[in-house]
């Protein structure tokens, strides 16, 4: 099944995936993460350039449209503070702000205020890890996400809650569920 040498062969079984492949537009970043804010018609992208410098861009577009192949990305101030960033772990908060993980917390970009805010997560975890949003409530500004990390004892899950972009709580889950 890997024998096809076509430059683009496309299989859709139930019509779940339709449309053709669009090449990734420049700039090509390493360890990238992209976030789309469809409410504000914005797309953010963070990563590292070929020289290893952190890069943070946005484009006023939230769909693949005619000019997606040659978009003009605008560079934004990158997060600083001498922190070590894990750019692949980013998400859009319920307040519609871009958030990216650093070692010990998250940095939040308020695009309209043009500010980075750094929030410490007071729970032990290792880096890099895998984080995923599990719940958002726009009405009260709640974001719950889980961090999957591991140390010499094995794998762990830690839940983190933001309220209006502030870290309200974090707690490691007990996974010794008795059944």
């Amino acid at each position, binding site marked *: 099944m890997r024998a096809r040498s076509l430059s*683009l062969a496309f299989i859709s079984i139930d019509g779940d995936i339709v449309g053709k*492949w669009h090449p990734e537009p420049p700039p090509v970043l390493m360890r990238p993460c992209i976030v789309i804010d469809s409410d504000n018609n914005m797309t953010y992208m963070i990563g590292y350039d070929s020289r290893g410098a952190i890069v943070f861009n946005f484009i006023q577009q939230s769909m693949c449209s005619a000019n997606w192949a040659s978009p003009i990305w605008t560079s934004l101030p990158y997060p600083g503070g001498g922190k070590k960033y894990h750019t692949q772990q980013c998400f859009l908060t319920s307040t519609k702000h871009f958030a990216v993980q650093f070692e010990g917390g998250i940095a939040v970009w308020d695009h309209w205020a043009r500010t980075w805010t750094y929030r410490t997560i007071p729970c032990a975890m290792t880096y890099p890890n895998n984080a995923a949003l*599990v719940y958002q409530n726009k009405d009260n500004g709640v974001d719950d996400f889980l961090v999957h990390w591991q140390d010499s004892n094995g794998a762990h899950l830690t839940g983190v809650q933001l309220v209006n972009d502030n870290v*309200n709580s974090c707690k490691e*889950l*007990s996974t010794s569920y008795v059944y």
Partner: protein
Amino acid sequence: MRTDGGLASNHSSDIPKDMSLAASPVDGKTYFLFGSKGSGWYDIDSASAPSDKPVDTTSPFHTLPALNIDVPRAANFNGSIYIFGKVSFFLECHMVSQSIAKDKRNVHALRSRYLYLSLS
């Protein structure tokens, strides 16, 4: 149930190690882990209001087949989770269907879609 020989309240015997990806349909009820050594999900309970306990697991780990792909990435779309990754010179796409996300009884129903794209 495996115990890893420990009695600690936070022992993590049933969480797969070396997962390369985590994803959730953001319904606050399910949390997926994917990796080349195994995949699966937890049922979870997420706080919908400010709380000292953001998330809790409410089930043991349910297994799904391993995904043997490199640099996997997840995208949520219309209630499904799509996982893209590289296999040799091809881009591969797996889909965790909406029925899996909503009704997880069929643990072997992880369906795959393959996008064959030459990366050379």
